[in-house]
């Protein structure tokens, strides 16, 4: 490898190699995204052309159809409601649990941590069948509440893990001093520690949001026309669906779904890196 993590300056040849690799990787990462954007603006005959077409008369017909004549916006709203509720509940519940694990030496602490992290390995498909049966027997299919409950459950383990790491990075002594001055433990935590770990909490919330909007398996199995979130609604535009090939519409839907996540990621890059690496180190 021409690029070792050294501090020595690179030879011209090495510089070309490093640049070339980065250009290739950027093309690999960026091209499919560019292509989906182009597809969303192409008239149908250009989409179905044998040669990849880069120059064409752009049209907004796919955008109009998705935004105005399909139920897509309703499904989008469903996703936002589910994600907002999930983030709110997860952050409260996970922060309480993380605080307990970080600040109190408990005899069962190790077992509890293991239990929490083992949930992360659970393949969703193993739980989706029984949940489908249970939900249908108590009349909870196609309800937003059901999807919120499931997303909460699936996001709690990683969130506890991340937040616990952030809390352990702060000092306990300042909190204790606040308690000496008459604050309750939770009050001291809220006023002393939370302001310090605020960026960490924000990146955790962002992760929960992205995972929830992305969740597909439960969304498509447990929802019908009423509570369907966007991730499941995309399937309506797929060529395997009954409506035939709607690549332009699928491309529009794809862009609308991934846009918030990408914008957030770009804005919060630094926190996100901290979150991902922490998740990796602790995971």
């Amino acid at each position, binding site marked *: *490898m021409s*690029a070792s*993590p*050294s*501090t*020595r300056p*690179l030879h011209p040849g090495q510089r070309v190699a*490093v640049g070339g*690799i*980065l250009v290739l*990787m*950027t093309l*690999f*990462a960026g091209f*499919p*995204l560019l*292509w*989906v954007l182009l*597809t969303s603006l192409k008239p149908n005959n250009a989409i179905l052309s*044998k040669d*990849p077409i880069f120059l064409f008369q752009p049209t907004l017909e796919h955008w109009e159809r998705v935004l105005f004549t399909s139920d897509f916006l309703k499904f989008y709203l469903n996703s936002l409601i589910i994600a907002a509720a999930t983030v709110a509940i997860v952050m409260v519940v996970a922060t*309480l*649990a993380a605080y*307990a694990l970080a600040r*109190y030496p*408990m005899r069962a602490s190790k077992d*509890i941590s293991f239990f*929490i992290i*083992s949930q992360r*390995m*659970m*393949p969703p498909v193993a739980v*989706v*069948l*029984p949940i489908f*049966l*249970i939900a249908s027997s108590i009349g909870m299919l196609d309800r937003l509440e059901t999807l919120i*409950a499931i997303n909460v*459950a699936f996001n*709690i383990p990683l969130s506890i893990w991340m937040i616990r790491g952030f809390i352990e990075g702060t000092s306990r002594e300042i909190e204790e001093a606040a308690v000496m001055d008459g604050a309750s433990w939770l009050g001291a935590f809220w006023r002393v520690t939370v302001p310090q770990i605020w960026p960490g909490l924000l990146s955790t919330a962002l992760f929960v949001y992205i995972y929830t909007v*992305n969740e*597909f*398996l439960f969304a498509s199995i447990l929802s019908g026309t009423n509570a369907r979130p966007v991730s499941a609604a995309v399937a309506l535009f*797929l*060529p395997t669906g009954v409506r035939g090939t709607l690549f332009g519409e*699928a*491309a529009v*839907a*794809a862009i609308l*779904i*991934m846009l918030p*996540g*990408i914008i957030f990621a770009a804005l919060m*890059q630094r926190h*996100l890196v901290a979150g*991902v*690496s922490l998740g*990796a*180190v602790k*995971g």
Partner: protein
Amino acid sequence: MRASLWSRLFPYLLLMPAMAILLAMVVYPLLFSLTTSFTDYNLIMLDGVWVGFKNYLTAFGDPAFRDSALFTFIFAFTSTGTQLVLGFVTALCLARVVYARGPLTILLMFPMMVTPVVVGILWLLMFQPDYSVVNGLLAKLGIAGPIWLQHPLTARLAVIVADVWQWTPFFTIILLAGILNLPKEVMEAGEIDGATPLQSLARLAIPMLMPLILITTLIRLIDSFKTFDSIFVMTNGGPSASTEVVSLYIYRKGLPYMEMGYASALSYLFVIVLTVIAALLIRQLSRKA
């Protein structure tokens, strides 16, 4: 006395909501499907008769299950391995970029932020059955591309490419953070002692990065065993079940066919195998790290 009892109970009280949710939404359904796995619950026999270990025995002799397990292994190891190599090389290159490293990193991170279903759509577009971009570009190089998603081998390659596209950035950003945190003194000392770049990479950087590399690989490996969304969208397991990963097979047995008893048994086997693999890898890891 009362205060100490309260303070001993307090942490458990804080843990209670999280535990209650996990018990209700994960543990209870798993116990439910454990009992289901010992019955022949299906669309016709809605009550299900106790059949003992029959479903589990059927699973061991089920060639479709064996094939899907085999492909899941191939998929997980090939795509994770490729991601590790590509991600590490990219991270090494990024570490040498002085100008505009931030924006470049954001750009390279995008695929990771894309919804997995959308990843399926993106690559379905790229490998479109009849009018594929990939083939159009290959044609410009004078290569006649295959109809990717209609042949078992190329379809497998296509779903692996999609996974590699999405998750290479995961390795890139974690390993980049690791590389930038390597102790400068050690690397400089190596250079003063005359180590070539290749030597300092192999003897100094990689050993110091090993714990990070192993943990990242482990996380991706476990996650890729569970892959469902992108494959479901791209090929739905086809052609002729060549890209049917275990998750997809269980799903198909469970829902469209409603063979709940059998599907529950399969998902139990899946959970057990995943847990064993994870435990083995973690043990290996803690020995090395």
